[in-house]
Structures are given as structure tokens and as C-alpha cells.
């Protein structure tokens, strides 16, 4: 029996608007408001970082001061005042990871509301969670089991202290400090995030998962993730995101770097459900994220899967650099925008090596007055003999006031390249909707059903336990899109 079938009824059962819109009342430890060298020093000191890390941050900060915010995306939002935000917030008394039973019960309560099983159920589920609460990782589970396999899975702040050699070797090598405005900002002020190292030949024994949650108001979240898969290893990593409901906009500028060495495979899945703002476009997260993977060794593979249902603004292009010969890059995406949400998302597949292959499947769904843009680059460099790309880009419109846009960039500098691009735009047909209604299905459930069908190829890429959540989200995020 398919997962889709099992969850359709739950879509209807979940009648709430934004289920995760609660605020946990915990005393916060904050950096002074605004952004300066002092802020950077404050964060670095809080993290007890070595000198090299502080220097790295300061260099990024100085570089950032000279940069200007990019404006090429098809996004419309008020100017962000970077001096009117807090760049560091941590629950008081929880600096550094703790054992689960030492964690503030209020935090655990929050996780419970989010439906994260941070307990014995974890063993059954086989998922290890490095839960990031605002900026500090407060609970890391299953370290022992992972360390048996030689896998390092810890907050990046801890990795900087405990595994400086690996971190220094790879940090900033996929997304350089000066890469772009938001990545550079992140490099200066990132407060925490996740670090994963999978040693040679190891197959990570479980799905690794991190839930990020922005809790403190007026706090930007700048997490930094670094995943290194050594030769011949395999790892699957999942991130889920939610944020409470607030009237003001909050900035989220994350950086994720993936490095796959020879023969390694990394599967990175995201279910992004940050607060999207209300039905009038008030509030919501500004999500400016730089995600990039480097297939550094031959025959390596990186696969991105994303389900983007939240955020007022999404600016995100998880990309693959296919550097090694015979490497494979994949990008599977569902981006849903409703009400006044705007998404400008896609990928870059940079073919550098011989016989490199990439596959892009993008499903954009737009409802209400939302705007949804797919922006993708397929670039074949002169040395990339026999490069292959297939892009499938489908847009679905619900109602007549939303927009879908497809902006593909294709650059081929090798005559042997084969690049295919298919794109479709459709509306939920009135006859499909009527057929469902005639069989007793409500309009909202019918839309969820049809959209889940539309997204099926991408949903199938998600690990089982997340596919269920993602399908529910598809239904919830489109509530109110049909009258």
C-alpha cells in the first residue's frame, strides 16, 4: 500500500492553519543587537573557538561589508536592516551539548509539539537527531552507535574544537567565504549547525536528521552544515524546519557544504516549513540559503531532494559541482507557494569531469497570489566529454492570481554534451476537481490528492518517514487555495 494512500486522510484531519506557531518561553542568552566586528567576536568567544576560526569569521565580515545584496531574483521584499537583528541567541545555561535527561523539559516539550521523537522511539525509528534550538545544539543522540561506524555527527561548534583538522580542510572549500552576500554573512556570524564525517568505505548505519527551529524573536538563524563523505562511503541526511508565527520577518541565511570523495554518495533531503506569513502576506521567514555539493572524487554522487512549503521568501539553489569523472548530480524539488509567498529556487549543475550526469526534476505549485520561479543552470565545461543532463520542470497553477516562471540557463562548451530540457505548465483542471467531488472528496482534499500525484516523482525520493510528513505538508500548505 502506498504512503500516499495512508496519508490522504490525515491531510484532512490536520485542519490547523500553521500548526507549529507556538513560542517557547525560555530565557535567552543574546548577543547585543546589530552587526559589527564585536558581534563576530562575541559569537566566536561564546563558542570558545580557536583563533583561526575567529580570523576566518572576521575576514568574512570585512568582505561582507563591501558586498551588496543581490537583486537578480524574481523576488519582492522590503529592504532588510542588518543592524536591527540579533545574531546570536541561545537558551541560557545550555551552552554545549548535554545528555537528553539534562535538557530543559520546556525544550523537550517544544520538540514534542513538533513531533520529533527525542526518546526511546528514536531507536525504533533508527533516526539520529542533532536538534538545533536556535543556535546551540542541545541534544545529540546516538553518538555511540555512529561512532562504532566511525561516523562523526555533532554540532559544528563542537567539531571546530574537537576535529579542527577535518573542519579546516573542508570548510569553505565548496562555498568560499566570498561566494555571495548571504553566504559571506553566514561565514561571519554562523552560530551553529551540523558536522558529519563518514570515513572511508563506511555506510552510515542510520538516516541522520536535524531539526532547525527559530524560536527567539528578531533573531536571524545562520546555521552552517558541513558533510564530508570519504572514499566509498554513503550517508543520507535529512533536515526539517519550522518556525513560530510572528508578525515581523525573520532572516535565515544558511550555508550547507557537501563533499563527496571518490565513489562516495551523499543524499541530502530537506522538508522546509518555516512560517510562510499569514494570508495577507504579513510576517514570515526570509530564507536565503546557499547549498552546494562537490563531487570531488570520481564516481561520486550527490542527490538533493527538497520540499519547500514554508517561508515568505525562498532564495535557494542547491547545486552540484560534478568535478570528478563519472560523477552524478541530482536535484529533486517541490516548491509550493500560497497566499503571498514568493519562491525563486532551482539548482546549478556544473559539469567539469568526463561522463558526468545530472538529473533535475522540479515541481512548482503556485496558489493564491504567490509567485514561483524555477531558476536553473546546466553548465558543461570544455573538459566534460559526454556530459548528460535531463531537466524536467513542471509547474501547476491553482487559481488565476498566481504566477509560475521558468528560467533555465544552459551553457555547453563541449560538443559531445547532451542536454534535455522539458517544461510544462498546467492548471488543476476543473474536470479533475469535479471528478473527485463527485466521488465524495472535499475540494481541499481533492487539491491535496491531485498535487501529491503531481509531485509523486519527487516525494518518492524522500526517505519513508519523511515522505509521510511531506505529503501532509503539501495538503496543509495549500489550505484555502480553492473556494
Amino acid at each position, binding site marked *: *500500500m*502506498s504512503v*500516499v*494512500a*495512508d496519508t*490522504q*486522510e490525515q491531510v*484532512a484531519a490536520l485542519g490547523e492553519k500553521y500548526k507549529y506557531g507556538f513560542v517557547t518561553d525560555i530565557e535567552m542568552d543574546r548577543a547585543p543587537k546589530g552587526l559589527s566586528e564585536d558581534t563576530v567576536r562575541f559569537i566566536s568567544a561564546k563558542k570558545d573557538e580557536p583563533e583561526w576560526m575567529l580570523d576566518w569569521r572576521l575576514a568574512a565580515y570585512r568582505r561582507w561589508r563591501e558586498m551588496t545584496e543581490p537583486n537578480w531574483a524574481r523576488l519582492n521584499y522590503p529592504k532588510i536592516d542588518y543592524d536591527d537583528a540579533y545574531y546570536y541567541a541561545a537558551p541560557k545555561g545550555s551552552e554545549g551539548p548535554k545528555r537528553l535527561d539534562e535538557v530543559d523539559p520546556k525544550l523537550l516539550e517544544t520538540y514534542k509539539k513538533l513531533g520529533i521523537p527525542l526518546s526511546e522511539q528514536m531507536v525504533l525509528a533508527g533516526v539520529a537527531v542533532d536538534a538545533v534550538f536556535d543556535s546551540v545544539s542541545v541534544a545529540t543522540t546516538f553518538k555511540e552507535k555512529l561512532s562504532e561506524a566511525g561516523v562523526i555527527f555533532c554540532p559544528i561548534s563542537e567539531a571546530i574544537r574537537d576535529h579542527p583538522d577535518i573542519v579546516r580542510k573542508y570548510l569553505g572549500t565548496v562555498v568560499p567565504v566570498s561566494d555571495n552576500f548571504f553566504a559571506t554573512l553566514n561565514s561571519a556570524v554562523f552560530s551553529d549547525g551540523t558536522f558529519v564525517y563518514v570515513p572511508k568505505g563506511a555506510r552510515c548505519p542510520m538516516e541522520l536528521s536535524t531539526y532547525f527551529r527559530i524560536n527567539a524573536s528578531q533573531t536571524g538563524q545562520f546555521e552552517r552544515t558541513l558533510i564530508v563523505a570519504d572514499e566509498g562511503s554513503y550517508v543520507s541526511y535529512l533536515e526539517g524546519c519550522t518556525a513560530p508565527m510572528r508578525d515581523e520577518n525573520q532572516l535565515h541565511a544558511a550555508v550547507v557544504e557537501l563533499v563527496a570523495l571518490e565513489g562516495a554518495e551523499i543524499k541530502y533531503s530537506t522538508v522546509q516549513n518555516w512560517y510562510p506569513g499569514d494570508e495577507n502576506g504579513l510576517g514570515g521567514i526570509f530564507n536565503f540559503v546557499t547549498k552546494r555539493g562537490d563531487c570531488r572524487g570520481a564516481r561520486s554522487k550527490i542527490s538533493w531532494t527538497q520540499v519547500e512549503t514554508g517561508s515568505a521568501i525562498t532564495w535557494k539553489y542547491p547545486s552540484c559541482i560534478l568535478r570528478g569523472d563519472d560523477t552524478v548530480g541530482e536535484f529533486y524539488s517541490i516548491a509550493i507557494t500560497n497566499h503571498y509567498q514568493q519562491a525563486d529556487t532551482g539548482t546549478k549543475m556544473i559539469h567539469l569531469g568526463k561522463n558526468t550526469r545530472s538529473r533535475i526534476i522540479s515541481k512548482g505549485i503556485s496558489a493564491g497570489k504567490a509567485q514561483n520561479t524555477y531558476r536553473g543552470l546546466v553548465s558543461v565545461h570544455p573538459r566534460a566529454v559526454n556530459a548528460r543532463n535531463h531537466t524536467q520542470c513542471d509547474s501547476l497553477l491553482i487559481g488565476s492570481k498566481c504566477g509560475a516562471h521558468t528560467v533555465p540557463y544552459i551553457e555547453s562548451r563541449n560538443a559531445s554534451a547532451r542536454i534535455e530540457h522539458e517544461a510544462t505548465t498546467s492548471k488543476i*483542471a*476543473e*474536470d*479533475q476537481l*469535479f*471528478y*473527485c*467531488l*463527485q*466521488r*465524495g*472528496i*472535499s*475540494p481541499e*482534499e481533492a487539491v491535496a*490528492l*491531485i498535487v*501529491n*500525484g*503531481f*509531485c*509523486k*516523482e519527487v516525494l518518492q525520493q524522500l526517505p519513508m518517514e519523511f515522505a509521510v510528513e511531506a505529503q501532509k505538508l503539501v495538503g496543509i500548505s495549500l489550505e484555502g487555495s480553492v473556494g
Partner: protein
Amino acid sequence: MLEIKNLHAAVDGKEILKGLTLSVGIGEVHALMGPNGSGKSTLSYVLAGREGYEITQGSVTYGGKDLTAMKPEERAAKGIFLAMQYPVEIPGVTTLTFLKTALNAQRRARGDSELDAMSVLKLVRQKAAALQVSEEMLKRALNVGFSGGEKKRLEILQMALFEPALAILDETDSGLDIDALKLVADGVNALRAPDRAMLVITHYQRLLNFIVPDRVHVLADGRVVAEGGKELALELEAKGYAHFMREPA
């Protein structure tokens, strides 16, 4: 159970039904025949509550209640089933998923408990065999790549599954060869029951050799122009629609 009185209905401002009166009793099987453009399909959509089919005059009651005040999904939950002439494709949604979603939506609306996936599968399998609906078909996306016969058999399978009190079959015979027609007709006949009324809409008398109606109505230009027993269908076949269209209702 179904009372249609002086029904006028328009699509895009154009009047299609022009004073149609028809009544179907509990458990009765009625045939509605008529030439192209006489309003047969329009009537089926009006009864199912499709958007864009506007009732301008007259009344429709179902089980004594005003049918026109109910939403399409409420009508379905209250036992109105429309087997469509052109069943719709829904890519990516497996047939079984669709059946489960619909069945549970109707059960929920009636206050019954929902069935889990295994129970639905068992129930569907029971009904599917007689209609030669294979497991493989159930796993395919709804109606996507189905042949004409497969689509119609799936419609009848849904009728068997939902057990409606009033089934409207809109040109269920169209596009079927004789073997496929017989299979579908057998399926329909197996579902005849004292508490299940049917309105069989067809262009040709042929279908009525297999599904024998209690009453026959002839529709022309949005009105019923002749009514009678099953022999009326044969007379119609012999004389043609033109003969009836000249007579006032």
C-alpha cells in the same frame, strides 16, 4: 426518490434544459434516451452539482430534500453516483489510493469509521474480479493510459464500491465493443437492487438489450417528449428520434 419538476438549466448563459420533468422511484431503473445535444449529459451534471451548470427555474428533490442546495461531495455521500462518459485522468495518484480516499471521505461524511488500507484492498478485490479489473490496473495512476473499456469498468467498480442509492450512467456504452459492453452491462445488472435506482443515459437502444429498464424517457431539446415502458426504446430504434421530436411533450 428523485423528482425533477420543470427544470430549466443553462451553461454559459445558454439554456440547455427547458422544462424537464422526470421522476424516478426507489429501486427503479429508468432509461433516458435522446439525440446529441438534447441535454442528456447536462442533466447528469446538474444532478451531480457540477460548477457552471446553473439552474434557472424548476426544482429537483432527492429523498424529499432540495438537491440543488447540496454541494457535489454531499450528494455523493448521500448516495448519488455518476458514472461518467469521459472518466478523468489523475496522474501520479494510484487507482487504489483514489478509491480509498473517496470511500473514506464518503464514510466520514456519513459518520462511519474509516477503513484502513488493507480493508479497502480486500473490499476492492472482492468487487474487482467480476469486472476483470486486475491488481495491476489498481496500481496504475487513475485512468492514465487506460483503454476505453478499462475506464468504463473502473467506473462500474466504483459504483459497486460506493453502493449508491441513485446511480446515473452517462453513455456508459459509448466507445465499447460488444464484448466490453456485455461485461459492463453484467456488472451493472449485478448491482440492481431494491434500494438502488438507476438512470441509464444512452444514445442507442443497444445498451437496453442488456440493461432492461422499467421506464424509458425520450429527451429532445431539453424536454421529455415521450415516456413509456421498455418497448418504447424499440419503437424509437425503428422510427428514429425525428419522429418523436415533432410531437409536443
